[in-house]
C-alpha cells in the first residue's frame, strides 16, 4: 500500500494534518471513510440476511428435517429444538430476513456507500456539506442494527409479523407470541430512519450547493442524479414510515387503538401508511443501482449514454409517480374496488419510465465497443434481470390477475428479480467498478468473472422457478406447504430452488475472498483504470482528504466517449477544450450540446 499512501501527501486547498486512529477510522468525517464504513457494515448485514435466507430455504426445501450439523446445535429449543425449525421461528426468519436485507443491507449499500463516495467526487466537492451529520448518519446504523439483532435473544423471539408488519397481527403479542421482539423491531426502524434522513439531507444539499464550476445540472453523472432523486424520496418517505411506526408502537405498548379494531382503529390505515412509504421505498432500493449501471455501461462500452436527458427525466418521473401507486399492494385488502382501478392505471404508467430506461441502456450498448469486465457483466445482468422483474410487475399490476397471484411466490419471484437481480447486481457492478477508487487496487478479474457467472446461473435457477410456484398457487410466508394437498407436488421444485439458493449464497464467498484479497494483493489501479470521464477519476486512488488538489472546472458532460476528433476514446469532464493542434496552433473543439439526437 506504500504507493497509495505516498499519493496521499499532496498540496492543495485542503489542509493536511495527521488524524488520530479514532478520528481517521472510527469517528471519521471524511465522506470516503464513511462510505467504506457503510460498505463493511452493509456487507455484514448482507451476509446475515443471506444466512437467514438459507435457514428459510432449508425448511422449505427439506421440511421437518433437522438443520445440518454446525447449525443444528447453534439454536436453542425456543427456535429450533434438535435442529428442526419451529413455525414461530420460521415467521421470525422471514420477517428478519426481509428487514435486514431491505433496511440494513440494500439501503446502506446503495445510498450509504455510493451516496457518500460518489457525490462529492463526481461533482467536484471536497467533502459533504455537513461532514459531522454524515458521521452521525453512519453511526446510527449499527445502533439500530444492534437493537434489531438483540430482538432474537429476548423472550418470545424476534418480530414475526412480516416485514410489512400488518396490523393487528403486529399490534399485540397475543396474536404472535412475540412481545418484546416486535417492540424492538419498531424502535430499531424508528432509530434507523434518522440515519437515512441525515444522510439524505447531506446528499441533497451537497448536490445543489457544492458543484464545481461548470457542473451544470445536465452535466451531472447519472449515478449522482440517481442518488439525488433517491435522497429526495428518502427525505419524504422515511418520515411517513416513522410516523406510522410510532403510532404502531403506541398501539403495542400503551394501548392506543390507531390500528386495532377493538377500539375502532383501522387495520387498513396501517397498510395505507406503510405502502405510501413502501412504494417510494422500493424505488429508493433501485434508483441508485440504475445510476451505477448507466455509468458502467456507458464507460465500458466506450459510448455516450443513449438519451441522457430522457434518462434523467425518466428517473424524475419515477420519483413523482412512485407516490401514487401504493394501492397496488392492496388490491385484495378490502380497499374500495373502484380505488383499485385507479391504482391499476397509475401502476402501468410507472412501467413506462422503467421501460424507457431499459431501452436507453440497450441503445447505449448498440454500436458500442463493449469491454467484458466484471462491472459491465453485472451491469448488463442488471438490465436483463430488471426486464424480467418489470414484466412480472405487469402481471400483478393487472388487478384481476393479481387476485390469484397476490401473496403467492409470484410476488416473491418479482421482488427478488428487482431487488437481487436488480439492486444487488447493480451493487456488485458498483463495487467492482469503484473499488479501485476506494482502495487503490483492482479486484481480480478472473475471480470476478467466475463469481459473476456462477451467481448469474444459480440466481436464475433459484428465482425463476418461483414464478412457477406462484402460478401453482403456493402462498408466501408459509412454514410447510405440504400441509396443503394441492401444494404437495411442488416439493421437488422447492428442493431444487433451495439447493440453488445454497449454491448462490456459497458463490458469494468468492466475492468476499476477492474483495479481501484484493485489498492487499490487487493490481495497483492508478488514477483512472477504466478510462472514465467523471471528475472522480481525476483524483488519486484512493483520493486524499479534500479530494481535489484544486477546484476542478467542468467543460462538458460526463459521457463523451469515442469522440471522432480525438485519439483517445474518452474525454474527461475537466480537460480544457483548447488543445494544441499538429501545427502547434490552438484548436478549440466545441463541446456538442447534450441533447438526445444532437
Amino acid at each position: 500500500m506504500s504507493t497509495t499512501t505516498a499519493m496521499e501527501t499532496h498540496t492543495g486547498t485542503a489542509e493536511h494534518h495527521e488524524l488520530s486512529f479514532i478520528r481517521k477510522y472510527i469517528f471519521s468525517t471524511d465522506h470516503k471513510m464513511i462510505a467504506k464504513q457503510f460498505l463493511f457494515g452493509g456487507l455484514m448485514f448482507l451476509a446475515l440476511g443471506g444466512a437467514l435466507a438459507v435457514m428459510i430455504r432449508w425448511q422449505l426445501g427439506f421440511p421437518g428435517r433437522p438443520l445440518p450439523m454446525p447449525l443444528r446445535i447453534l439454536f436453542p429449543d425456543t427456535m429450533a429444538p434438535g435442529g428442526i425449525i419451529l413455525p414461530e421461528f420460521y415467521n421470525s426468519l422471514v420477517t428478519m430476513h426481509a428487514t435486514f436485507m431491505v433496511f440494513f443491507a440494500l439501503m446502506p449499500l446503495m445510498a450509504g456507500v455510493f451516496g457518500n463516495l460518489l457525490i462529492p467526487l463526481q461533482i467536484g466537492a471536497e467533502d459533504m456539506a455537513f461532514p459531522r451529520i454524515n458521521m452521525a448518519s453512519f453511526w446510527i446504523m449499527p445502533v439500530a442494527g444492534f437493537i434489531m439483532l438483540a430482538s432474537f435473544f429476548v423472550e418470545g423471539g424476534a418480530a414475526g409479523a412480516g416485514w410489512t408488519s400488518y396490523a393487528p397481527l403486529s399490534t399485540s403479542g397475543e396474536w404472535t407470541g412475540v412481545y418484546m421482539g416486535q417492540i424492538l423491531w419498531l424502535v430499531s426502524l424508528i432509530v434507523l430512519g434518522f440515519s437515512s434522513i441525515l444522510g439524505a439531507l447531506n446528499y441533497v444539499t451537497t448536490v445543489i450547493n457544492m458543484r464545481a464550476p461548470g457542473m451544470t445540472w445536465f452535466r451531472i453523472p447519472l449515478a449522482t442524479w440517481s442518488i439525488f432523486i433517491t435522497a429526495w424520496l428518502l427525505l419524504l418517505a422515511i418520515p411517513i414510515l416513522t410516523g406510522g411506526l410510532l403510532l404502531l408502537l403506541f398501539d403495542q405498548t400503551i394501548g392506543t387503538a390507531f390500528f386495532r379494531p377493538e377500539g375502532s382503529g383501522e387495520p387498513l390505515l396501517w397498510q395505507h401508511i406503510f405502502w405510501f412509504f413502501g412504494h417510494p421505498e422500493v424505488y429508493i432500493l433501485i434508483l441508485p443501482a440504475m445510476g451505477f449501471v448507466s455509468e458502467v455501461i456507458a464507460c465500458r462500452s466506450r459510448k455516450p449514454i443513449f438519451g441522457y436527458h430522457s434518462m434523467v427525466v425518466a428517473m424524475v418521473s419515477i420519483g413523482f409517480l412512485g407516490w401514487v401507486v401504493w394501492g397496488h399492494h392492496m388490491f385484495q385488502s378490502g380497499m374500495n374496488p373502484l380505488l383499485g382501478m385507479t391504482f391499476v392505471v397509475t401502476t402501468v404508467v410507472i412501467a413506462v419510465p422503467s421501460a424507457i430506461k431499459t431501452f436507453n441502456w440497450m441503445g447505449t450498448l448498440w454500436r458500442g465497443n463493449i469491454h467484458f469486465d466484471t462491472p459491465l457483466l453485472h451491469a448488463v445482468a442488471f438490465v436483463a434481470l430488471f426486464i424480467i422483474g418489470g414484466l412480472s410487475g405487469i402481471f400483478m399490476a393487472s388487478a384481476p390477475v393479481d387476485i390469484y397471484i397476490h401473496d403467492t411466490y409470484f410476488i416473491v419471484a418479482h421482488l427478488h428479480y428487482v431487488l437481487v437481480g436488480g439492486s444487488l447486481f447493480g451493487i456488485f457492478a458498483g463495487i467492482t467498478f469503484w473499488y479501485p477508487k476506494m482502495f487503490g487496487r483492482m479486484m481480480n478479474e478472473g475471480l470476478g468473472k467466475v463469481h459473476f457467472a456462477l451467481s448469474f446461473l444459480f440466481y436464475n435457477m433459484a428465482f425463476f422457478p418461483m414464478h412457477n410456484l406462484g402460478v401453482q398457487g403456493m402462498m408466501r410466508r408459509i412454514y410447510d406447504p405440504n400441509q396443503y394437498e394441492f401444494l404437495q407436488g411442488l416439493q421437488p421444485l422447492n428442493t431444487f430452488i433451495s439447493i440453488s439458493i445454497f449454491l448462490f449464497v456459497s458463490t458469494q464467498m468468492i466475492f468476499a475472498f476477492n474483495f479481501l484479497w484484493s485489498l492487499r494483493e490487487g493490481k495497483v489501479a492508478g488514477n483512472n483504470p477504466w478510462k472514465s470521464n467523471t471528475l472522480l477519476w481525476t483524483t488519486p486512488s484512493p483520493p486524499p482528504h479534500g479530494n481535489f488538489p484544486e477546484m476542478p472546472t467542468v467543460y462538458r458532460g460526463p459521457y463523451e466517449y469515442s469522440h471522432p476528433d480525438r485519439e483517445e476514446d474518452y474525454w474527461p469532464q475537466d480537460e480544457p477544450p483548447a488543445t494544441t493542434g499538429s501545427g502547434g496552433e490552438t484548436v478549440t473543439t466545441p463541446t456538442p450540446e447534450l441533447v438526445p439526437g444532437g
Partner: protein
Amino acid sequence: MSDAAVTTMDRKPMPGMMVYNKKLGMWVFLLSEVMFFTSLIGTYVILRFAHPDHWTDPGVVLNVPLTAVNTFLLICSSVTMVKAFASIQQGNQKGLQMWLLATILIGATFVGVQAIEYNALLGEGFGPVLDLYHAVGRGNPHEGPSLGGPLYGATFYAMTGFHGAHVTIGVFCLIFVYIRSLQGAYTQDSLEGVEVIGLYWHFVDLVWILLFTIVYLI
C-alpha cells in the same frame, strides 16, 4: 451553455440555490418534517372521517380558550425570534440576547401550558388509551356518560404531543444559541446559527397554527 461562458467563470462552486449550506439543509430537513406531520394529520383525518362518533364538538372536551391564548403566545415568540435575527443583522448583540431570551421564555411557557392542559384533560378522563378512556367533558363532575371515543384522545395526544416535543427541542436549541450569543459568537457577518434556528422555530409555529385549527376549531 457555451464553453466560453464557463471558462471565464470565477472559480467558485456552482451557486446552487443562492443560500448557504446550513440554511438549505434546514429547508430540506423541514420538508422532511412536513411529511412527518402529514402522516399524523392524515391519520387524524382518515380516522375522523371513518369514526365521527369518536369526536365531540369543539370545546366540549378540549379547553379552547386556554389553547387560543397559548397559540397567541407561540405566535408572539415567532415575532421575538424575528426581532432577535433583525438585531444581529444590525450587529446588535445585546438585542439578540434579549430577544432570544424572550423567545425561550415564551416557548417554555407554551410547553408548560400544554402540560397543564394535558394534566387537566387526563383528570377528566380524556386519555389516549382504549381501556381507560372515559371523557366527561370540561368542568363536569366525574360521573356522566363518556363523550367521544378513544380515537379522539389518541390522535389528540399524538399530534399535539409530537408538536410539543418539537417545541421542546426548539427551546433547547435556542438555549444553546443563547449561550453562544452570550459568548459573542454571532456578529453581523456570522449569524447563520440564528437564522437557521429561526427557520425551525417559525416552522414549528406554523405547524401549530395548522394543528390548532384542525384539532381545536373544526
